[in-house]
């Protein structure tokens, strides 16, 4: 067996392998003999078909099989002796095969890039240290209050922020539209959720008033009966109500499920939940900084085969998420490709780190993680059991834990600088690795 290696690009390698004629012939004859012992043909007793007849009938198929088998065996050997590690698929092309000739083929593949920097020594890492201020707590409380708004009917004219209860009838060209009648529809003034003309048209109306508003529908409106038409809405205002935000007091705390302790307890709870969220977020940011600097330290060409595979995977996930509606679409290929490249590169680096440091997913941490995930479910024990039943499912958790461990260890090799940030700034921080 003769093997020559060519370097086609930085990572691309082309192997040219020549298998001598004797080896091929020997293999072929062996297969022919075995086949003629099994083959059944009319006019011959089973297994008594002469090799010549069998060859005439099956030689094409046999040649392919022999070549395929020899390629598989010799290629593995060739890759082994030249100490190559192929990444992704191998493209094999062989010259025309015939009996009595040697087998010559080329195999093209990419090899894994060499990864040299496996620590972050001397790297300045930034760790955001979030501070939760009273203002952050108040802002959250404000959001909560808005969610628990109540409506109080008033006798005055409707203003922005008010809610109207209306009945309306739609007419196009003076005729009532089919299905164009509704009762007790809420309209939030200034929310933009109804037609702009209507929202503007009913400002200043009082309870019991009826107004006519003309709405011009665009030519591409969804309802063909309305497209491009001017429809007249006859709006009868049944009720005008103003929003009432609940007061920040012990009542609010009670309504939110805090039995005693009152408003101070609520504030404390909000603060601690914000702190938890901020800590989680800070960890994500830090993790991203670790991975990013790791990638910056290891600039290498990524095997395109692996990138293509990743692009394909991402697209499938995206399609599954978007449902059948999102058909195959090549337009955002470049977008995927760049992200896939970073992902693959990081995957390779992390795998190398794991290998060189012999890091393993700690069983205790895996357990803790699953338990944490289980907490949100009704029957945590069942959930944990279910998770541990499937090695594949558990494997996902293990790889997450493994990644966390790697990031932690890497972080310890770097210079970590704490930087205090406000909660709002923290939320604005970039967490995407790509």
């Amino acid at each position, binding site marked *: 067996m003769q093997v020559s290696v060519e370097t086609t690009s930085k990572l691309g390698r082309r192997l040219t392998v020549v298998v001598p004629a004797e080896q091929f012939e020997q293999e072929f004859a062996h297969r022919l003999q075995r086949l003629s012992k099994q083959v059944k043909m*009319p*006019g011959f007793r089973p297994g008594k078909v*002469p090799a*010549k007849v069998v060859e005439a009938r*099956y030689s094409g*198929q046999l040649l392919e099989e022999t070549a395929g088998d020899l390629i598989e065996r010799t290629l593995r050997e060739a890759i082994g002796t030249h100490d190559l590690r192929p990444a992704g698929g191998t493209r094999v092309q062989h010259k025309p095969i015939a009996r009595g000739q040697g087998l010559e083929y080329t195999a093209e593949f990419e090899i894994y890039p060499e990864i040299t920097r496996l620590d972050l020594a001397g790297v300045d890492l930034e760790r955001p240290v979030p501070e939760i201020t009273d203002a952050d707590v108040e802002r959250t409380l404000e959001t909560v209050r808005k969610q628990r708004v109540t409506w109080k009917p008033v006798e005055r004219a409707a203003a922005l922020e008010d809610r109207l209860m209306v009945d309306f009838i739609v007419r196009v060209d003076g005729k009532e539209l089919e299905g164009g009648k509704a009762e007790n529809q809420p309209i939030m003034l200034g929310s933009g959720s109804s037609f702009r003309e209507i929202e503007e048209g009913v400002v200043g109306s009082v309870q019991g008033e009826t107004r006519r508003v003309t709405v011009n529908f665009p030519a591409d409106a969804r309802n063909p009966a309305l497209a491009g038409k001017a429809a007249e809405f006859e709006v009868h205002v049944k009720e005008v109500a103003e929003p009432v935000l609940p007061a920040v007091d012990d009542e609010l705390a009670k309504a939110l499920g805090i039995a005693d302790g009152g408003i101070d307890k609520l504030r404390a709870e909000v603060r601690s939940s914000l702190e938890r969220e901020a800590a989680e977020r800070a960890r994500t940011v830090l993790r991203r900084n670790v991975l990013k600097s790791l990638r910056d330290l290891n600039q290498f060409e990524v095997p395109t085969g692996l990138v293509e595979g990743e692009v394909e995977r991402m697209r499938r996930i995206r399609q599954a998420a978007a449902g059948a509606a999102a058909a195959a679409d090549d337009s955002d290929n470049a977008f995927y490709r760049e992200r896939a490249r970073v992902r693959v590169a990081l995957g390779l680096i992390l795998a190398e780190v794991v290998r060189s440091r012999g890091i393993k997913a700690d069983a205790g941490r895996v357990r803790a993680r699953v338990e944490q995930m289980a907490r949100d479910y009704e029957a945590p024990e069942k959930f944990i059991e279910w998770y541990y039943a499937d090695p594949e499912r558990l494997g996902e958790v293990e790889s997450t834990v493994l990644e966390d461990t790697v990031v932690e260890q890497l972080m310890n090799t770097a210079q970590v600088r704490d930087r205090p940030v406000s909660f709002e700034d923290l939320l604005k921080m970039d967490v995407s690795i790509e």
Partner: protein
Amino acid sequence: MSEQKKVVDEKLFHVIVAPHVSEKSARLADKHQQIVLQVRRDATKPAIKQAVEQLFNVQVESVTVTNVKGKRKQTGRMAGRRQDWKKAYVRLKPGQDINFLGQQA
């Protein structure tokens, strides 16, 4: 003359029905350069010789023929008989060969 020759030619195409492939025919082909054919029942030795020579572009040494009786077949009470047929052993001159088997995979 040419008119008559053409008619003969067309008939020749119909003389040979099929090659007969069996263990015996494979052995004969190997040992004695003989091919075995199923031919029309009314074919004569000279006609077979001519047909083989023209169709396969070979030279024929000799032809022997045999009439094969059709097998008797019976399903239930219904008795029947398969068609009789004629088998021809055609010996080629030394150095000649016909490959019936073809290179199909």
